[in-house]
């Protein structure tokens, strides 16, 4: 044992482990920058949609059918969760599944750093993209297109965090279940339409028939749109959508942990 401990200098372990995590995050961020397709989907598409809707004069008329909201106001929360959905379905699980396919997670498990760190680093990087997208849509919708300043910024922040929680946990569950990077795309295409439908992309929640609205309330995107909409228009959102999002976060995270394979 004595000769074993000899070559290990008394390094400040906590600091060096933080440095190792920092290195992983740095390389994951580089990869995102060099393959910007996910950033285009999760930041570019929402911003372009917002500009198109913002430039349509009809979208700035309060409509009785939307409960007195303008079309633009009704669509900003939907556009926000649209960006998060792209990350959930592609940005987060895509790299993780390909790392498993390429044997990178396996390689990491032979080093002092566990492969879960790579997963954590992905979450950090994708969180950065998510927050950037949300911030751009929020700031530009208010400053450029005259959307109302959120009534409850705290409620909005909490709603966004819980929406990210529920959706990222879903992304990790997809990463756990998808056997190949191609199957991530297939799952994404299948899940995208129903998720976005209940967010109100084609039929805003304000004009959804009661039965669809009830279903929407219990979907991750429906609850997220409700919580964000309320935070912007009326004040701190009611407990129901927040609890729905929190429950999705816990359940998806539990299932992802349960089924995740490292090789």
């Amino acid at each position: 044992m004595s000769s074993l401990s000899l070559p290990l200098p008394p390094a400040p372990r906590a600091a060096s482990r933080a440095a190792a995590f920092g290195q992983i995050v740095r390389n994951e961020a580089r990869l995102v920058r060099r393959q910007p397709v996910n950033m285009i989907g999760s930041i570019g598409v929402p911003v372009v949609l917002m500009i198109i809707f913002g430039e349509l004069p009809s979208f700035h008329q309060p409509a009785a059918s939307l409960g007195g909201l303008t079309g633009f106001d009704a669509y900003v929360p939907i556009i926000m969760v649209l960006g998060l959905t792209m990350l959930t379905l592609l940005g987060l699980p895509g790299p993780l599944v390909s790392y498993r396919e390429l044997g990178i997670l396996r390689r990491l498990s032979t080093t002092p750093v566990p492969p879960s760190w790579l997963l954590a680093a992905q979450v950090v990087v994708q969180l950065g993209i998510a927050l950037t997208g949300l911030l751009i849509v929020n700031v530009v919708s208010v400053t450029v297109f005259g959307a109302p300043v959120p009534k409850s910024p705290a409620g909005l922040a909490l709603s966004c965090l819980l929406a990210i929680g529920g959706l990222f946990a879903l992304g990790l569950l997809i990463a756990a279940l998808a056997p190949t990077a191609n199957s991530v795309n297939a799952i994404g295409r299948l899940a995208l339409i129903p998720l976005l439908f209940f967010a109100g992309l084609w039929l805003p929640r304000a004009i959804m028939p009661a039965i669809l609205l009830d279903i929407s309330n219990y979907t991750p995107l429906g609850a997220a749109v409700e919580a964000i909409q309320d935070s912007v228009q009326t004040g701190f959102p009611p407990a129901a959508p927040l609890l729905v999002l929190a429950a999705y976060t816990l359940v998806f995270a539990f299932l992802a942990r349960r089924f995740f394979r490292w090789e």
Partner: protein
Amino acid sequence: MATLDGIAAGSRELVEAPAAAGGRPAVEVAHLRKTYGTLVAVDDVSFTVAEGEIFGILGPNGAGKTTAIECAIGLRTPDAGTVRLLGLDPRADRDKVREIVGVQLQAGALPAKLRVGEILEEYRSFYRDPADVGELLEVLGLSAKRGDYYRSLSGGQRQRLSVALALIGRPKIAVLDEMTTGLDPRARRDTWELIEGVRDRGVTIVLVTHFMEEAERLCDRVALIDSGRVVALDTPASLAARARGGKSVRFLPSAPFDETLLTDRPEVSRLEHEGQHILVTGTGELVNVVILTLAAAGVTARDVQLDSSSLEDAFVKLTGKNQQKEGALA
């Protein structure tokens, strides 16, 4: 070529190496067993690797080599048996073992759009006392590729990068699974030189390989694994000698002679005619015996070829399989 001081466990350990050579083994594997359902991947595998040794694990495809190695480094939990790496249990002492054992697994890729230097810097940060990236790249002949994307590397360069990642933590034990598969002969030879250089700095090396030539050239000892068991464990030369029960000498006699002169000698076990040539099989100082005996009878042996049997012969004999062909197909 750059000095290897930077990547090996450090020359300061060399002082200890002679003492350690007779002491604690680097790797101890005892009665390892691993099954997947009804499939017995590893039946009963035991071997010991001394510090500073290059130890080869040979065997046909599906023999259980990789499973045995994965159990040995703690990636898989064996059903039975014990493993000690420099006295440590790879699962109970996981963190310590990860620090001192560098592993290159078969068929591992890396992100296409990371640069060679970025990948090495990342893995370097995982270890307490890592090698210098620039030095390691130079030794591996990858210096010019430091700024290149992984996807632009050739198969050989990717393989060398993979070996580099196994060595970046300056391990005391390096486990390399099919390290030169897919390399061209030149790159393979370069890699062998590198491995010898790493060993010369006191690192223990466990090689899983398909290539007989590689095992013969590099390994101090070889374990031949077949159907989950060690069927032979010896130096490559002894294994080869065992395969044919000795060596053989082929020659063209200058004149006919009494063959019992040779077959009566204790060193000679067999004499065969191959056209004009004669093939004598036996043991000991066979060449000297043949030439001196013939000279005493006034006969000269011309065109003498010493045909010592190879590790491949041993492999075929012990496993009944032709590894080289499988290797070429794999």
